[in-house]
């Protein structure tokens, strides 16, 4: 990222329900459970990550989006690997 891009990043109004495309790989925290299914909540968008391991919650992971419903702001994703931890 260039110096200028670092200053300009994030300027604008961001949606509370970001959309993803199937096949897209994203880095995100696994944030909790919906029933028994681990989920990654990004803003108010919810990705179900069925195969996330038991200790995945509150840690950052690389996820591959498998399907995404634009109307519902929900989708499913595959857990690829753990990439980071919570700040606390």
């Amino acid at each position, binding site marked *: *990222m260039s*110096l200028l891009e*670092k*200053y*300009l*990043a*994030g*300027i*604008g*109004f*961001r*949606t*509370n329900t*970001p959309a*993803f495309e199937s096949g897209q790989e*994203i*880095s*995100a*925290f696994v*944030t*909790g459970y919906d029933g028994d299914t681990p989920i*990654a*909540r*990004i*803003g*108010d968008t919810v990705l179900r990550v069925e195969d996330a391991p038991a*200790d995945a919650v*509150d*840690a*950052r992971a690389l996820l591959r989006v498998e399907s995404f419903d634009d109307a519902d702001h929900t989708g499913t994703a595959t857990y690829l690997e753990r990439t*980071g*931890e*919570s*700040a*606390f």
Partner: protein
Amino acid sequence: MVDDEPPDEAVEEELAEARRARGGSRIEFYGGPAASTIPIALFIVWAIVQSGLFRIGDTTGLVAGMLLALIVGMFFAKGDWKTYANTIFDGMTQRVAATAIVAWLWAGMFADTIQAGQFVSGLVWAADALSVSGTLFPAITFVLAALLATGIGTGYGTTIAFTGLFFPAGLLVGANPVLLFGAILSGAVFGDNLAPVSDTTIVSAVTQNSDIGGVVASRFKYAIVAAVLAFVGYLVAGSVMPGADIAASGAVLGDEAEPLGLIHLASIGVVIFTAVRGRHIVEAVSWGIIVAAIANVAFGLAAVSDMILFRAPDSVALADSLSWLPFLTTVPAGSDQVGVAGSIYTGAAGFFPLIVLTLLIVAGARIMIRGGGFEAIQDFLLERVATNVRRAETTMVLGTASVNAMITINTAAEIAIAPYIARIGERFNINGYRRANILDANTSALGYIFPWAGGVLVGYTEMQGLVGSEEFGWFTRELLVNPAEVWPFVFHGWLLFGVFLVSALTGFGLEYVSDRESEEVARV
């Protein structure tokens, strides 16, 4: 680092340990998990009483409060108190505290070195050369104070320097005293928020797992919107509000002007540039210190002895024979002058009380985590208050602002609220930079508004010193600005808070973890 582990692994290990610690309630308390909040809760009460009610802005006093709070909390722990005591050790040895401490020590040395190099006198020269009128004076003062605060990273230091110099100078040219004091505080807010060497900036980045340079770059967009509006505010208010009636005239600023002091804009530039380029903050600030020290000596702004000086007792023969060295002098043996001095020494030493306080607060926070209190509060917030991303961000803004409005010493307030900002934000995948920005902007803003705020108190204390001083014989008690009057005029503070409230409600500047990754925390 002393151990052989690569720093990244050390961080990973520590974070994994923190996760394990959160997992189970390892300390049982009489009264349940809620009782584990006793050390932190007592400390907050102490801080409000000491600083809010008694108006004592003494960081070492807060250290005493936190120590007593840790002792009281122990009596509520069930079973062997050894676990409680060990948790204090575990809390204090966390990397999050160590990284902030290292950055503060470096920032302190840098700030004092450019101050020794007459940077303030450079700003004075600029104001004098522009020969600003009373109407324009508050607006220009805001800009210059913001510049100083961005360089030295301490809003308190800026407030002291400007209240002692620009305040009387502004009154003489017909500026309104209350507005002028508000403008000085606004400049301090700006720098506290934006400076890479500011203690609050460092805490915000470290606690949200983000690099300091990236944090500074990403917060520019909010700061500049608020600053432009504040500048316009001071222009408009300056032309409406009347100046004080002073039976004196003359140039206060002229005597203190030193154009060469502005060379330290280059020292500050070096730090900001290298930090934003992604260099470790220790490296970035070290380069700043080197440039500043060379400039000080080369341009005659400060001698080597102003930066580091051994004051040895004259009874030591070796010291006497070596006293030709530029960093060595002899003083009467047995006098209280014996010691080490200079900007490197005072800059680092100035942070000692805050460092001890930070270690104790993170220890108290660790007890709250192991006792289950942290989780209980977090669950309440996530289940009842922060139920969607807009509400989560609004909670983060209002939570940070209210804790800082209550506690005088804003760095302490920031450290106490930081874990909640991290966790609530992570649960919505809000980017680390965004979290750090919400945390720091509202910490900086609210630390300079209310009458019990640390920034307002140090400014008022300095102002009292002007009454009846030799230099400003005309400065009477009537010219003092009552701390309770200034709050509506800290425009940049209010606007920064407003910008973040609007940002939280509208999604302006919002970034998600999936949008981009903040650079690794090993960069501090």
